[in-house]
């Protein structure tokens, strides 16, 4: 249990923790995010899309690691597209990059402590916050083991621990479930639901099942644009099962592919979008 400060329960002065208008972000020469409008509140927002759709670039922009090429991006009511006033916003952000790198000779506790220091947490709060973060991801018995001795799934969980150590208002997780076994995945979903009450979580993934199970909200992006947004049930409802207006596009059967309604919905929307764009 943690004591809440007065400024933590004070009403916020912004409508959305994450708000983007006509956001364009470059990745190399390519415009990886190309005119995206977003307004995200508390909850778990699943970010789905094929490889190269711009998921990672979008998450990097939200983490203020990459500066947008144009458009506005407001985080916690602060305009960060100009690249100024970042420190205050960054203290409220938790970020798990897609390629999560770590210092191999650090223990899990040392690493999470280091990140807490990087996030400018008050020194008196650090030990408790670190222990809480490690407990929440289920690494308590490994807390004093070196990072290099951890398995892939444990490293991922250590990555989640460093992201949540500062009780962020905005939590950005890029492919957090890679390497987790089914049991840990379930645990992770529980953690997500737990966080969703007061945190704006953005989870980028290419596993449709993760989104269906743990997200309050789904966004599909392709080629840097928002293709679809709705609750997971909408995604399932969008599946067309090979009847009606599904002309054969030469890719085999006319019906949407996938083993679950959500997967079928995903592939239906993607195909429809691609067809419209080709016109």
């Amino acid at each position, binding site marked *: 249990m943690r004591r809440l400060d007065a400024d933590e329960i004070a009403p916020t002065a912004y409508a959305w923790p994450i708000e983007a208008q006509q956001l364009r972000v470059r990745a190399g020469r390519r415009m990886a995010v190309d005119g995206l409008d977003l307004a995200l509140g508390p909850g778990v927002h699943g970010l789905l899309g094929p490889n190269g759709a711009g998921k990672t670039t979008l998450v990097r922009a939200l983490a203020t690691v*990459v500066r947008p090429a144009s458009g506005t991006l407001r985080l916690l009511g602060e305009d960060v597209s100009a*690249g100024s006033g*970042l420190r205050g916003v960054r203290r409220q952000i938790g970020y798990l990059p897609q390629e*999560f790198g770590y210092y191999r000779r650090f223990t899990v506790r040392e690493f999470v402590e280091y990140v807490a*220091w990087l996030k400018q947490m008050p020194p008196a709060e650090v030990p408790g916050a670190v222990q809480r973060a490690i407990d929440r991801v289920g690494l308590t018995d490994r807390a004093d083991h070196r990072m290099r001795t951890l398995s892939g799934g444990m490293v991922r969980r250590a990555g989640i621990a460093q992201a949540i150590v500062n009780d962020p208002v905005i939590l950005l997780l890029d492919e957090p479930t890679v390497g987790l076994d089914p049991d840990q995945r379930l645990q992770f979903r529980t953690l997500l639901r737990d966080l969703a009450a007061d945190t704006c979580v953005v989870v980028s993934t290419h596993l449709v099942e993760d989104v269906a199970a743990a997200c309050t909200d789904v966004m599909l992006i392709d080629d840097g644009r928002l293709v679809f947004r709705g609750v997971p049930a909408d995604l399932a409802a969008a599946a067309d099962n090979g009847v009606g207006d599904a002309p054969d596009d030469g890719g085999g059967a006319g019906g949407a592919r996938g083993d679950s309604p959500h997967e079928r919905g995903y592939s239906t929307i993607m195909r429809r979008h691609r067809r419209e764009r080709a016109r």
Partner: protein
Amino acid sequence: MTGGHIAADVLGRYVASGTQSTSIDADAGWWVVEVHLERCGPCRDRIRAIVESGESRLSTQLRRIRSDLMAQAAANPAPRVVRWLGGIRRWTRWWVAPALLPRLGMTALVVAAALALDTADEAGRFPPLLLLLAPVLPLLGVAAAWSHGLDPAYELVVGSPRAGLDLVLRRAVVALAAAIGLLTAAGWLVGYSPARWLLPCLAFTVSALALGGFVGLNRAAGILAAAWGVLVVGPSLVVARLPVVLAADAWPAWAVATGLVAIVMVVRRRAFVGLASGR
């Protein structure tokens, strides 16, 4: 109800139900009590008394546990070694890049190799290699202060509130100081004065940081070292003479150059709060 007021046991159960609500139906049963409480001051006072007595029991217990713990902690202060270790760790966090250590080993190797070659060249046919390499030697460590390739957690560091020129500078200063220490020790063995390379070392470090604001610190260090090798080290080995830029009276030029690149570095300080665009 007795005499128009709520019975004590009912009131007690009402307070208990407030702390462990079971369902909406169960809560609805208290409706009659709540209607009475709205109008009856004395009953509200009795509720406050019940709540406060319960709380004070809990808080006295907590206070006792806390004072016990504090007394124990005061009786057994952490051993001096532990406190020193904590202090060292805090200092390291503040000043040293976690990725610096392997690079320092590399620096030491290069110094040792140059030293060996210099002593092997007894006839003095070539200018001392140690002197020739000294200006760019700190770059090996400086590059580790802020680089994508060398720091595994680079994306986390760059996206943290602590990211910025001040952190880069602190890390670079430590790398520079370590390299200068190694050079001075080696120079003392063969009798070169450290005054010859102090300013060039500083100039190259600042140049790397300034150029790093454009192309990334690692690449900047590589470019500068290669340029120095091709333009100065190579020719002076061919003509077998110490270059003019390393002459004892060249220091004003080095000082001016350092000042100029320092300005560029400060102007480009924004580059150190995000990933370079294009990567």
